[in-house]
């Protein structure tokens, strides 16, 4: 066994973990406000708007994230117009491409999760808000968004973990996040076992920490939705 090599390279793994967390939380942070707004559009009374969002979520949930990532990272170079535009330095950077792909992908999933939460808010809560004469904006801010988010917590927690794990795909576009670091060590030292096992252990630990936080958040803010214990 070659655990010594892993020990020497722990700083690399630490750098990788930082990049993994940056990609995951960066994508989630950008996607969150988009998904909350699109959830309302997804349930809008205007049919054209509703359909547009439905098609967007359908396409991004119906194709592999790996394909989406490659379309953006390798695909965009096909168009001369993009290559010569002032945006190109950004669009040719793997980090930016990964963030764009993940934001588009997770926004599609989160929109559906939030839109589902919105549909399950009891009508009475909305009627009560209207009866109190709350404006549309106040209704959304004080009643709908909080109720929607608490109802979506378990599913959104899952989605966050999915995004965290999906960051491992970034290794395919040269990024040295946790999986990329593991891959690099296998190539540099010709060992196949220890690097990937270490990567798996790091992901498992991060997931465990996140799941524990979700349990706490869930109990604290969505506890009132639990079935009453008799």
């Amino acid at each position, binding site marked *: 066994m070659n655990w010594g090599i892993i020990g020497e390279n722990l700083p690399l793994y630490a750098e990788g973990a930082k990049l993994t967390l940056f990609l995951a939380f960066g994508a989630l942070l950008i996607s969150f406000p988009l998904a909350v707004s699109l959830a309302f559009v997804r349930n809008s009374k205007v049919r054209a708007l509703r359909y547009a969002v439905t098609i967007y979520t359908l396409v991004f949930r119906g194709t592999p994230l790996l394909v989406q990532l490659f379309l953006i990272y390798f695909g965009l170079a*096909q168009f001369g117009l993009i290559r010569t535009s002032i945006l190109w330095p950004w669009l040719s950077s793997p980090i930016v491409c990964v963030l764009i792909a993940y934001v588009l992908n997770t926004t599609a999933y989160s929109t559906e999760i939030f839109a589902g939460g919105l549909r399950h808010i009891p009508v009475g809560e909305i009627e009560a808000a209207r009866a109190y004469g709350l404006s549309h904006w106040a209704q959304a801010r004080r009643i709908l968004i909080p109720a929607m988010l608490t109802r979506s917590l378990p599913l959104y927690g899952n989605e966050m973990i999915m995004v965290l794990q999906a960051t491992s795909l970034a290794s395919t576009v040269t990024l040295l996040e946790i999986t990329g670091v593991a891959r690099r060590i296998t190539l540099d030292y010709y060992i196949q076992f220890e690097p990937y096992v270490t990567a798996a252990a790091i992901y*498992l630990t991060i997931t465990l920490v996140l799941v524990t936080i979700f349990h706490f958040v869930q109990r604290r803010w969505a506890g009132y939705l639990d079935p009453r214990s008799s």
Partner: protein
Amino acid sequence: MTFDFTLTILAAGSLTLLLALSSLVVATIIGLATAFAKLSDSRALRSAAGIYTFVIRGIPDLVIMLLVYYSLPALLNQWADAVGWDTHIEFPPIIAAIATLGLIFGAYMTETFRTALLNIPKGQIEAAVAYGLTRPRILVAIIIPQLIRLALPGFTNNWLVLAKATALASLIGLQDVMFRARVAAEATSKPFTFFLVAAAFYFLVTLISFAFLTVVARRYEIGIRELAS
């Protein structure tokens, strides 16, 4: 040229579907076995099943695939060396991919089947026992038909995710749709076109599966009355 490459990409569709369907069979078997293990009286079985689902769900799919394809043979070869066997173990990509996806989606299927099993009213089983039905008969006549209906939405969902996850197998060298798209993208200067062809393939699989499973779901819901709300 573009047309020829498109054809080679789509021709690999059969391999992608073979991989997806074989993995689905493996995942269903693992999922059923683990679901029964989770609901069993034996504490050892219950915790083994719990550890399995937690570990699988806590590690990215790609890393599990790399572990199965690279790390597992490396470990086996080390052991073989240690006991003095002169062999070199290596898995073909398709086998490694089926094993990986089977393991991963077995964990997701476990949750689907476990919830479905819990939703079959206990009284029905008790009634069957009271009528003197044998255990295999209870399983075939009472549990399985309802399990199909109750598990179908989750099953559909898992299948849709699984069909897309097969694209990962291209990263360990399986010549599936994604792999061919990559070859075409590198050979020509049209990466967008060919990755779009691959995307269209996966999207079509999603749409067809969805339509098909909706029909199946309707078939199994015959005779079920929902409470009028």
